[in-house]
């Protein structure tokens, strides 16, 4: 009986410790954002009010609730700058996810077709850049794309006049596709690699040309991988900050940058929080789809 008791305590701790950590450092902070987004900016420390005063008991809670308002959301709705910023982020994320699919699919397909013993090496080669600093990889593109950089000089060799590439949308798309390519290739590869080759052989036996077999068998079956990779890229790209900040121009203001400016330059914490909450609402659909895919995959594995 004593053994059982220790077992259940040990087992409970295994669940409880990480659970408590995530509640304290993930769930509670998300609720705090929601609370601050309903607060007002003041010149004080902390720079918002109302501040929940639990020592005042019920009166404190009542005053706190009475002090909340949706003014910050009205600010967001009232200024087209914010709407333009959200739309720009969604546009950049959608277009770069499409580009990632077009570029990532052939790479993943070739990886899955490679001889078995070099597949592991290829997987490692694709993962390696993901481990290398994001910031460093974006910085590398500044060296390449700047005015007298390698890209313009390479274009010069084939007789194309140099153009400014930095601070353009093109640079942002290049940076995003480059940084997120492993996130697209790996889920696609995982699906393509599991594909039952007997299906393709059956198609060939029945006289289906290889090209047609690709469009009617391989492509539809690899769709789950494409959706998984797409969501894995789309969701974080919408909130991307570093890439548009370093490679983009002032005409490409994505919502991550707007939030950053509200917080660090304008020191308006409540509006920054409201931006974050609206961003979360925009992303709730894609995040739920991501969860759904993951659960289906987990069920299939177990």
């Amino acid at each position: 009986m004593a053994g059982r008791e220790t077992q259940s305590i040990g087992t409970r701790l295994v669940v409880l410790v990480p659970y408590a950590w995530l509640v304290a450092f993930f769930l509670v902070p998300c609720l705090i954002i929601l609370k601050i987004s309903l607060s007002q900016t003041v010149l004080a420390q902390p720079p918002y009010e109302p501040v929940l005063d639990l020592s005042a008991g019920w009166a404190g809670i009542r005053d706190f609730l009475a002090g909340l308002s949706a003014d910050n959301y009205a600010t967001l709705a009232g200024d087209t700058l914010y709407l333009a910023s959200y739309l720009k982020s969604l546009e950049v994320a959608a277009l770069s996810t499409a580009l990632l699919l077009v570029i990532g699919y052939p790479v993943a397909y070739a990886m899955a077709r490679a001889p078995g013993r070099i597949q592991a090496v290829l997987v490692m080669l694709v993962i390696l850049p993901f481990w290398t600093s994001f910031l460093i990889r974006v910085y590398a593109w500044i060296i390449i794309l700047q005015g007298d950089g390698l890209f313009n000089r390479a274009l010069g060799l084939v007789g194309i006049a140099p153009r400014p590439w930095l601070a353009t949308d093109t640079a942002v798309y290049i940076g995003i596709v480059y940084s997120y390519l492993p996130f697209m290739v790996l889920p696609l590869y995982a699906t393509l690699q599991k594909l039952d080759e007997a299906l393709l052989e059956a198609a060939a036996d029945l006289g289906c040309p290889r090209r047609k077999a690709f469009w009617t068998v391989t492509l539809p079956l690899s769709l789950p991988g494409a959706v998984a990779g797409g969501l894995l890229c789309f969701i974080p790209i919408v909130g991307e900050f570093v890439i548009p900040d370093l490679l983009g121009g002032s005409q490409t203001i994505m919502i991550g940058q707007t939030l950053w400016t509200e917080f660090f330059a304008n020191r308006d914490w409540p509006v920054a929080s409201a931006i974050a909450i609206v961003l979360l609402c925009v992303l709730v659909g894609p995040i739920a789809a991501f969860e759904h895919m993951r659960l289906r995959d987990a069920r299939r594995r177990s």
Partner: protein
Amino acid sequence: MRRLSAINLTALALGLAFLYLPIAVLVLYSFNASRLVAVWGGWSVRWYRELLRDDAILDAARISIGIALVSATAATVLGTLAALALTRVGRFRGRAAFSAMIYAPLVMPEVITGLSLLLLFVALGIDRGFWTVAAAHTTLTMCFVAVVVQSRLIDADRSLEEAAMDLGCPPFRTFLFVTLPVAAPAVVAGFLLAFSLSLDDLVIATFTTGPGATTLPIRIYSAVRLGVKPEINAVCTVMISCVALAVVAASLLTRAGDPAKKPFAH
């Protein structure tokens, strides 16, 4: 044996070139004697020598490595526990919410994670610095560790653990002597992943840091915003080399524990 068609080979070559050329350019230019990118001034280790004299960068590197060590250690413990909870404990109340909280931070935009943690620290009245960044990084990276270890535990053969339990081995000893050795390669890989993610993070660190805890990415970012600097190329090359070594070590370790996955076994 299958052979790659010309189209597949081209796709692979172009894809890998796209992934590696920018890094190669960066490494190459860190050895450029000239300060200007437009001019190749011959090979030189001048920028590495200057790096050794740059106290601001060295301080930032020390702080970043400290934070990465602390947070990766904590994340490995918490992430491994979380993976055990998801694969070995069975049903418990709030399991779905728990698993959602493990996966949500993986795709959550960093600006939101950073802002939310900063607001938590402010609400609690905690002074920001080394420990707040470490706690923030632990939260993000423990989820990566949990996913890596969980995947290993799902694939692992459970009959060994069941045999140990059937023979009367208490659960904790079973975990220590049977489950942990099976999961070990993934735990090590998880630690290295957590370490490199922490070393790399700019956005969350900027939100949660305070005076005296300027990390290397924050330092690099403020330099990079003003344009290309050869010293920065040198720092980046050093960081890339460390990460490459760690990844190769991790992948060898992962395979050492799993003979079936040896790529060079014939």
